[in-house]
C-alpha cells in the first residue's frame, strides 16, 4: 500500500517536469528523508477527509492517522496543530463549529494512540481556507478535511 503511494508520488513528480532543470529539482525533492516534514505531508499523509456535515473518522482517515501516529512517535520534540475545515455548503459560524469538531475528532484519536496532549493544538478555519475552488462535490470532498501540521504550535 505504502509502495503504491510512493510510486504514485514519483509519477506525479515526473509528469510535472517540463524541462531538465525542474526534472533535476524534482529528483532532489523526491529524495526526501523519512524524517523530513515533507515526507510526513506527502507520503504519510497530513490530511484526512470527512463526509458531508460529519466529523466521524472514516476507515480511510483511520489508516492515515495510524501512519501519522507512527511517524509522530519518532518525533516527540515536534508540536502539532490540527486544522479543521469545512466545505462552502454551510453557513460561516456553523462551519467554524464543524471544523472544530473535525479537528477534535483527530485530536482524540491521536491522544488515544498515545500522542502527548501538550503537543497538540487545534484550530478551526470553517470554510475560510478552501484547498480547491470548484463548486461541486469533486472539490468539496477535498475541502472537508483535517490537516495535521507538524512543527506548529498555537500559543494561548
Amino acid at each position, binding site marked *: 500500500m505504502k509502495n503504491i503511494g510512493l510510486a504514485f508520488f514519483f509519477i506525479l513528480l515526473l509528469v510535472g517536469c517540463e524541462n531538465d532543470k525542474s526534472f533535476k529539482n524534482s529528483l532532489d525533492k523526491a529524495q526526501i528523508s523519512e524524517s523530513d516534514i515533507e515526507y510526513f505531508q506527502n507520503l504519510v499523509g497530513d490530511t484526512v477527509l470527512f463526509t458531508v456535515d460529519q*466529523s466521524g473518522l472514516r476507515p480511510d482517515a483511520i489508516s492515515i492517522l495510524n501512519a501519522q501516529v507512527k511517524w509522530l512517535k519518532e518525533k516527540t520534540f515536534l508540536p502539532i*496543530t490540527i486544522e479543521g475545515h469545512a466545505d*462552502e*455548503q*454551510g*453557513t*460561516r*459560524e*456553523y462551519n*467554524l*463549529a*464543524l471544523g*472544530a*469538531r473535525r*479537528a*477534535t*475528532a483527530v*485530536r*482524540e484519536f491521536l491522544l488515544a494512540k498515545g500522542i502527548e496532549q501538550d503537543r497538540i*493544538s*487545534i*484550530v*478551526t*478555519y470553517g470554510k*475560510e*481556507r*478552501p*484547498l*480547491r*475552488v*470548484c*463548486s461541486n462535490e469533486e472539490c468539496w470532498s477535498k475541502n472537508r478535511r483535517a490537516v495535521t501540521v507538524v512543527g506548529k504550535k*498555537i*500559543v*494561548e
Partner: protein
Amino acid sequence: MVRHSVLKLLIIFSFTSILFINFSFVAAQKNDAPQLDMTVNRGVIKPISLAVPSFIKESGANSIISRELAKVISNNLDSTGLFKSIPQSAYVSMPLSFNTPVQFSDWSIINADVLVMGSVGLKPDGRLEVKFRLWDVSQQKEIGKGKQYFTNSESWRRISHKISDTIYTRVTGEGAYFDSRVVFVSETGPKDNRTKRLAIMDQDGANFRLLKHPPSLVIAPRFSPTSNKIIFTGYETGKPRVYLMDLSSEEITSLPELKGMSFAPRFSANGKQIVLSMTENGNTDIFINTLSTGVKRRLTTNNAIDTAPSFSPDGKSIVFESDRGGGQQLYIISTQGGDAKRISFGKGRYATPVWSPRGDLIAFTKIKEGKFHIGVMRVDGTKERLLTTSFLDEGPAWAPNGRVLMFFRETPGRAGAPSIYSIDISGRNLRKIKTSSFASDPNWSPILN
C-alpha cells in the same frame, strides 16, 4: 391660490466635527401620521413620484453641493422602491428662491406627488446652512414643518441622509434608516487565498474605508448599539477569538476571560453584554459575557453545535441555531438560562438567526435542496417567508427600522466571490450594494447620533 404657511424653522443644530441631533424634535416628528397613501395593486406598489430640484444656492455655497444634496436624497428614496424620482430634465421650472411661493402647476404637470425644496448657504464661520421643506403637490400643502441644519461642510452627505430619513418617515410612517453605516468584510485575492479586511461605509456605499488591524483572518464585525464600537472574530493568535474595536481610535482589545476558540459575537441592545459561542473540546456552546465585570456565563450545555446567537431587543431572550435535534434549527432561550424552545420546523437547515430591532421578526439563512435563502419568520416561528434564493445567500443584517435586510451573496465556482445585497422584508427591491472590492458579512448600525 397657494396656501403658503409661514416657514417654521424649529431647530437650529449646532455642529462641530460631529453632527449633533436634537432628539426631542425627532421624537415629535414621529407622531406625524403618513400623509400620502401608497397605492397597492395586485401586490405591485406604485411608487410615489418625487421631484427633488437641486438645492437653491444661497450666499457662498458651491453648485456641486447644491446638486449633490438633491442627488443623494433622490438616490436614497429611489433605493427603497417606494419612490421614483422624476429626472431634472423633465422639470418645467426650477425654484429660484427658498421663500417664494411654490408654483404647484409646474409640478403637477409632470405628475410629481411630492416636491422637496431645499437651499444651501455657506456661513462666514465656514459652516453650511441647509434648509428644506416637503410639499404635497396635489393637495398644495406642506407635509410636516421645514427643517434647518448647520454643519461643517464635510458633513453635507449626512445632512442629505437626515433629510431623506425625514421625508421617508413623513411619507411612509416607517422608521428612519438612511443616516447609518455598514461594517463588513472586504475581500480581495483568489478564492483559495483570500485577504479579508474589516471595512466600513455609509449605508449607500459612500465613504468606504478599511479599518486598521493585524493582517490575520477576520470574520463578521458587528456594531455596538451606540455605533462607536465593533466586535468581531480575528485570528491574530492563530485561532478564532473575539475582539472589540473602538471605531474612533481603531484600538483593538481582546476579551481575556475567553478560553479555547470563540466566535459569532453580538452586543445586547443596551451594549453592556455580549453573547457569543465558544468551543471547548470540540463542543460549541453559547455564553453571555458582561463587559464591565468580564464575568462569563454559560447558557447552553449540550453536545450539539450551539452558535450564531442574537439578543432580543428587550434583552430577555436569545435566538440561536443548534443541531441538537439532528439538523440545524432555530431555538430561543431566556438570558437567565433554562430550556431552549425550538421555533423552526420546516424542511431544510436554518442558520444565522437575527432578531429584528422592532422585536417582531427573526431573519435567518435557510439551506434547502442545495439552495440558500434569506427568510423571515415571526418570533414564535410562524409565518415563515423566504425572500431570496441563490447558490449561496447568507448572514442577514437588519436596517435600523426593521424593514430592510442586507446579506451577502456568493457566486459559485473558481471565480466565485461575495457581494452585499439589500432587500425589503416584503421580498421586493433586491439591490446589489456597490463596493470597491468583494464584500461579505454586512452589519448595519443603528441611526447615527
